[in-house]
């Protein structure tokens, strides 16, 4: 009886695992296809596509890659900015600058995070335009 119960539990466990495996494979195929659409499934292709993203970023369209988790220090590095450029453009008075993130600063100042992110991008665009 015990052996019968054991075998039944094993079969149920197997069935559940196979079901989970099928779902995971479907998710993998879906995610892989979205990578294919972005032409990211061949390492060399990805390398070429991302060659531009290696520091420094120089064109106006590069500001679209900025996200609110990025720190001002990182932005200065990525875009090769003078250390105090963003501080003066955005009137940042926080003493932690540049070692704080865009979202952190927006939260401290009670700014709308998306609106402040846009103002960071807008502050960078003329600088990158003039650099060319």
């Amino acid at each position: 009886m015990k052996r019968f119960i054991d075998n039944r539990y094993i079969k149920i466990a197997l069935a559940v695992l196979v079901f989970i495996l099928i779902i995971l494979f479907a998710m993998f195929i879906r995610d892989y296809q979205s990578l294919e659409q972005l032409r990211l499934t061949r390492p060399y292709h990805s390398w070429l596509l991302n060659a531009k993203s290696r520091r420094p970023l120089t064109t106006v369209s590069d500001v679209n890659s900025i996200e609110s988790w990025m720190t001002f220090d990182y932005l200065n590095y990525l875009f090769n900015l003078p250390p105090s450029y963003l501080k003066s453009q955005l009137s940042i008075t926080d003493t932690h600058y540049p070692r704080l993130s865009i979202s952190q600063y927006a939260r401290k100042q009670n700014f709308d995070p998306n609106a402040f992110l846009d103002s960071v991008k807008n502050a960078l665009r003329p600088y990158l335009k003039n650099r060319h």
Partner: protein
Amino acid sequence: MIAALLSYLLLYKYVAIFILVFSAAVILPLPVNSILLAVGAFASQGYFSFWLSLAVAMAANMLGDLFGYWLTRTYGEAVIKSFYAKRHEVLVRLEKYIQSRAGLTIFLTRFTGISDIAGNFLAGIVGVPLRTFIIFDFLGNFCVFFPVLSLGYIAGNYWQDYSNVIDVASGIFLVLIILFMITRTIYHRSKKRRGLGI
């Protein structure tokens, strides 16, 4: 959550890598694959050093694994005895299985976050020798961390697109390991029954 971790990474760099990877190795459910992909991408931009990041991540993960191993090696027996006067049959079988394939078990469990922690605890409870644990833990961690960091390095700005694929692939790997162990058990049982003429 990943956004907050990324800010933390950018602010504290290698210290952040160490703390996050160590915490994940001990018990916290942190998205280590995503963190390493991001670090690889930052390394491709020159903001992090690839090899230093790999060394720090591996050292942190190995220390976390050793901590889990040491904890169960030291206190595991006492905890089990407080619940069961006699060792449970399942635990005895598990001990025999792991002891006969200690290296392979430790190596394979490095490939997914949950099994990594479980592997550390089991290795401590069944008494896998420390040297064996360290060698296969190192090999397993290298085989995981190096490809993920490299993928982040190649992906650059597109690292977030690879993050989902890697997480799902880890899940598939974990389920396949469990399926393999169960079908092996069924096979050996039926072989034993045939041998006994049942």
